[in-house]
Structure formats: C-alpha cells, structure tokens
C-alpha cells in the first residue's frame, strides 16, 4: 500500500510537470512531421515509416526515462521531501520501488500516446498494421523499464548530471553488446576478461529490438517473447535490489 501511494504520487507529480509535456509534444511533432514528409521524398516508404517510427519512439522514450528518471531520487533529496518520507514508517526500498513504479506508469502512458501517434500516421498512409508491431512496441516499453531502473540505480549514488551521462552510455553500449563480444575476442587476455565481464553485466538491449522483424515480416515464437520478457523483468529486479542496497546505506545530506 505504501509503495502504491508513493507510485501514484510520483505519477501525479509527473503528469503535472511541464517538462514531460514539452518532451512529449516535441516527440510527437518530430515523429509526425518526419513521417509525413518522407512520403514526398522517398519511394520505399512503408518500410521506412515503420523503421523511423519505432526508432523515434524508442529514442524519445529513453530520453523521457532518463530526464524524468534521474530527477526522481536527486530531486527528492534536494527538496528534502525524502526527509519527511523516510522519517515516516516507510522503508527506503519501499520508497525506491514506489518511485520506480510511478515512473514506469508515466512511461507507459507516454508510450501509449506515442504508439497512438504512430498508428495514426500508419493508418493515414495506408500501411498494413500487423500484430508484430504491437509486440515490438511492447518490448520497447520493456526496454524503457530496464533503462529507468538503470537510471534509478545510478541516481542512488551520483549526481543527476552524472546519472544522465551514465544512463545514456549504458543505453548506447547496451545496444552494442553483441559487437562488444566480437570485439573482446580480438583482444589479449586481460582486456578480453574485462570486455566479456561487461558483456554479461550490461543489459543486452538489442534483445528488445524487434524492428527488423516488423519490417521484414518475420514472426517471433511465443516462447522467445516470453524469455525476453522474463530476461527484462529479472534484470529490472536485480537493478532495483542493487539500488536498494546502496540506498539503504546512504546518508541523505
């Protein structure tokens, strides 16, 4: 119940924050206009519409996750709101999980709005809409959940700016982990261990990317989808646990 109250409170705060709307409106305008313009300039536009559309939703969602996410903990400490919450019978991990769920809810709403925008454009351009598209959108949201947890983890021990940079870096590297592995194989012993370690620790975000499947109409077996979701949720759980451990020992000063 406490976790839920904190989550809903966070969600409500987010909903009333202008920053979020600005980001969202910006994203919709950009996605919409680029998709509509594309028709005039390019031939193979069905494919490109899907490619650019899903790609933009991914990028903007991640930006929203980072900008709103890093502020979650730091802002609470700066404004001393956390003082009043932690001095009440609320465990620190409950606070953290509540904040996480609240932001996830915010992101869910954002994703739905952006997805709605994309569907409208696709419909207007008479692109056939297949079920694969919804699976892809679902996994994009799963990726947001992972990124938010990453941002939360960083923000339990560094400043807002550093968390933003680290999270962005994690996002970029997370999409390159496959390359990371091949890259590591070409290195000498010591470096290879480091790179392989990174490969296993960092989230493999490419797993959540079904853009290619949508564009080329390749089905993904249900069990594979399930595995990916389980992977995502497990990863989030570990991140939240790590964040809680750090948060528990931290001085609020």
């Amino acid at each position, binding site marked *: 119940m406490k976790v839920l109250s904190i989550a809903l409170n966070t969600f409500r705060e987010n909903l009333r924050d202008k920053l979020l709307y600005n980001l969202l409106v910006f994203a919709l305008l950009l996605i919409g206009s680029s998709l509509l313009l594309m028709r005039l300039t390019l031939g193979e536009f069905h494919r490109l519409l899907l490619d650019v559309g899903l790609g933009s939703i991914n990028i903007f969602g991640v930006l929203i996750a980072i900008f709103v996410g890093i502020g979650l903990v730091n802002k609470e400490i700066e404004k001393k709101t956390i*003082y*009043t919450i932690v001095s009440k*019978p609320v465990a620190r991990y409950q606070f953290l999980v509540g904040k996480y769920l609240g932001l996830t809810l915010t992101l869910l709403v954002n994703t739905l709005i952006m997805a709605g925008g994309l569907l409208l454009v696709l419909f207007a351009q008479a692109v056939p809409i297949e079920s694969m598209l919804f699976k892809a959108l679902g996994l994009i949201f799963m990726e947001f959940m992972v990124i938010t947890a990453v941002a939360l983890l960083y923000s339990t021990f560094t400043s807002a700016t550093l968390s933003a940079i680290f999270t962005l870096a994690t996002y970029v590297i997370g999409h390159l982990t496959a390359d990371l592995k091949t890259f590591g194989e070409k290195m000498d012993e010591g470096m290879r261990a480091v790179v392989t370690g990174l490969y296993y620790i960092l989230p493999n975000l490419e797993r959540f990317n079904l853009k290619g499947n949508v564009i080329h109409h390749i089905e993904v077996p249900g069990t594979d989808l399930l595995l990916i979701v389980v992977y995502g949720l497990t990863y989030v759980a570990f991140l939240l646990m790590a964040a809680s451990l750090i948060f528990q020992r931290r001085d609020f000063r």
Partner: protein
Amino acid sequence: MLPVTDHVVQIENIRKVFRVGFWGRRVTAVDQLSLDVRRGEVFGFLGPNGAGKTTTLKMLMGLIYPTSGQAKIFGHLVGDPAAKAKLGFLPESPYFYDYLTSREFLNFYGHLFGLWGVRLNKRVDELLELVGMSHAKDLQLRKFSKGMLQRVGIAQALINDPELVVLDEPMSGLDPIGRKEVRDLIFRLKESGKTVMFSSHILHDAELLCDRVAMIMKGRLVACGQVSELIQQGATQEVEMVIDRLSPEGLEHLRVLATKVVLNGERVMVVLSNQRQVDESLEVIRAAHAKLVSLTPHKASLEDLFIREANGVQSPVEARV
C-alpha cells in the same frame, strides 16, 4: 512489550564525521553528544549556525547514520518503524512537491500511515484548520509562500497524531507574526500532551517556549538544563546606571571603577558587574553631587549564556587525518 521509559529521546555519545571535498577531509559535525528529552516537555536544541543541530536531528530521523554512538526514540533504536510510527518531523526550509495541492499532499502522507477515506479526510481538514491553511486546500504548493509551506510542513508532521514532534528551525525565515503563530502552535502541542523538540538559533523563541534547552557549539554540548537554571548559572548580574551632571573627576573615577562607560553629551551611562562596583559608584555620584537618573538591573538571558559559551569554546573541530 514496550520498554517503559520517560525518556522519549535518548542520545548517547553520538558522533558524526563527514568527509568533504575531493580529498575526503574529515569534518566532525557532531562530537560525543549525549542528551535526553523527557515526556511532555518542550525541548529547545540551540546553537549558532553550523553547530551541528540539523546533523543531530537527521541522525535521530534515520536520515544519516552516526559514525559512532547511538540514539533511541521511545526506547527503540533510531530508524525502527515502531519509533517512526509515533514521530513527526519537519525538516529545515522544506519545499515539498510543487504540483500537489495541500490536500493531496497531506492525503499522501496519510496513506503512508495507512490512513484512508473518511478518517483521513477528517484528519486533513482538522490539520489544515489547526495550521490556519483551510483557505488554501486546493492550491498547488508551488504557489505557496515560505510561511505557508512551513505551515503545511507542520501539518504533515502531525498527520499521524505523533507523540513526539521534531521541528528543525521551525521559525527561521518567518516574519514576526509567523513566528508567533508557530510558537502558539508549539504551546498547543504541549498542552495536548505531546513532546516537542525543536532546533533554533534564535534564542528568544526558545526562552519563551522551552522547559529545557540544550546548547551545542561546534558539535559539542556546552549546556543543558532548565532555561531559568542556565541563565542563573554563573551569570554576572549586571547593572546599568545613567547619571547626569557628573564632574570630570567623578567621571575619571568611574572610568576606573566600571566595566563600561558610555558618554552621551552631559549624560553618562555606566555598566557595573557586581555589588562592590555599584556601592562605590553610588558614593562617587554622591560626592560629585551628580544626579542619578536611573539604575536598572540587566536581566540575564540565554543570549548572555550563548555569548559566554561561544567565547569559551575554541576547540578545533576540523582535523586532518
């Protein structure tokens, strides 16, 4: 079973060392502090800025961890949910959630104590009434003045009807009317049987309000006890004398005798620190045929104690290790 104790707060040899800057320089913010707060009293936690008051209160609230020593609230170690359930806390100059209205804000804190529905609504209305904010129920907090924020902050601290209310600098940044309102509120809390501990660097407030006070400087306890006792303790009973038509010889004599002499045209003001000085001054005045305009005993206050202690404490707080 709950430990039976009349000591609501017990702080034992608590110490907090911060590491600051790139090199991790150690700063001792609170040093071997011990004190207790008893049930039903208003306890003032006094000291100049940077004395370590906030640091101590944060340790009591479980926001930062002591380097050594321990503190208990209602016999439970700090941070125990059982202690937190009976506690209310107002941080120093808080800001809270900008986009919530005061009602939503208080509802949220109520939920954290498992209060919902009609009971919570009633409680929130009562509290907004108590702190005089009923008119701003549906206004977002970002539109509030500092005084208004302070009041919803206090309401927030009282949401669970706590037995112990801890306020960090509740009167700082408020105008005289706001300060009086906070003082009245603290009185009312005391009347309803609550224990109140608040920190302040404004001694006047404490003098009016507190049953007992502790004074800390540079992280160390320098005095603790009833206000009246502390004021008496070693206080020099100064007397202020105003004299007219004093002859130059008389003036010279008084300059030697008095603690302080101030000339204001024809008028002389002298400060005397003990009975002997007073007696001798009176004789000088009589001999010089001067006119004694007034003789006022200087009422000792916490301020004097404060200044006396401040001059006394020169222990180094920062140590490089």
